[in-house]
């Protein structure tokens, strides 16, 4: 962590090999400690016994690789090594994935994209979509990221929008066992068109949209495909293109055996 004076360290039950691959893939520049066998995790009282109990309540068998994991938790230590703050996920259902937790403490600085990224190049607009992880864990909230890059001199409409115009919209297509939350859109900029009474709101430049989702199914179902609809209407100062509508597919594997 580049921040002056604060040291950052990550701990999980992963093997050194898994950590080496992860650190290389995500360009992580702080130590990742390997607690194979979960000895320290257990000694500190951070062994997640709830995963098994939670699954059992739903008639789900916990996979072998899901045993021995730690509760996602962050401890802030002061200069003397005393715990000054502590953050542990309260609601099991809303439990953060590894990536979200690391993001919270590194402010996204060291995280690169996961492998299932999809890119789309359209007229004056580029879209990049990916998820927090290539894997999903049943019943766990994770996120779809949609990055939109709009060519300088062009903008796309945002909401609220007058009738007849198409605003930027991203939606995960509904499917059984797939639960999606409301997308988080960035703030729009008001925009006045010469000679028109209506008020428009637009986006320009680079945008980053987030859509939370979870795969809520009782049994192991293997790989899932997220079908994401994205639409917009791009305009410059002098012209508007027809509304664009695209479908992006992103494949997620079910969390792999350790």
């Amino acid at each position, binding site marked *: *962590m580049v921040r002056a*004076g*604060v*040291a*950052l*360290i*990550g*701990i*999980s039950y*992963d093997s*050194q090999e*898994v*950590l080496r691959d*992860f*650190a290389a893939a995500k360009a992580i520049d702080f*130590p*990742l*400690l*390997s*607690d194979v066998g979960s000895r*320290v*995790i257990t000694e*500190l*009282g*951070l062994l997640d016994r*709830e995963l098994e*109990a*939670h699954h059992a*309540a739903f008639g789900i068998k916990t996979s072998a*690789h899901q045993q021995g*994991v730690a*509760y*996602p938790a*962050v*401890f*802030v*230590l002061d*200069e*003397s*090594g*005393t*715990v*000054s*703050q*502590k953050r*542990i996920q*309260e*609601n*099991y259902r809303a439990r953060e*994935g*590894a990536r979200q*937790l*690391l993001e919270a*403490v590194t402010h996204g600085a060291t995280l690169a994209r996961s492998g299932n990224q999809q890119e789309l190049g359209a007229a004056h607009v580029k879209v990049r979509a990916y998820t927090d*992880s290539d*894997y999903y*864990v049943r019943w766990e909230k994770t996120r779809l990221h949609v990055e939109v890059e709009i060519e300088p001199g062009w903008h796309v409409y945002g909401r609220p929008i007058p009738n007849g115009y198409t605003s930027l919209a991203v939606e995960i297509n509904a499917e059984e066992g797939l639960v999606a939350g409301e997308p988080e859109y960035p703030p729009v900029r008001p925009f006045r068109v010469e000679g028109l009474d209506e008020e428009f709101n637009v986006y320009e430049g680079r945008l980053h949209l987030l859509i939370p989702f979870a795969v809520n199914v009782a049994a192991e179902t293997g790989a899932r495909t997220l079908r994401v609809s994205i639409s917009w209407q791009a305009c410059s100062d002098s012209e508007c293109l027809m509304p664009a509508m695209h479908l992006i597919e992103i494949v997620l594997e079910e*969390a*792999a055996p*350790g």
Partner: protein
Amino acid sequence: MKVNGTDMTQIGPAVGAAFPDIELPDAGGQPISLHAWRAGRRALVVFYRSAKW
């Protein structure tokens, strides 16, 4: 705050307590002792489920 009967505030080292000095290998196999490595700096110790899933 209880989740399924577990009081989450009781999990792990408590606020106000000294964080235990733990020693574990890093990804390259080098043993790291937390407090020695920290060398008097403030620190964030992040436990996360897995780097793989």
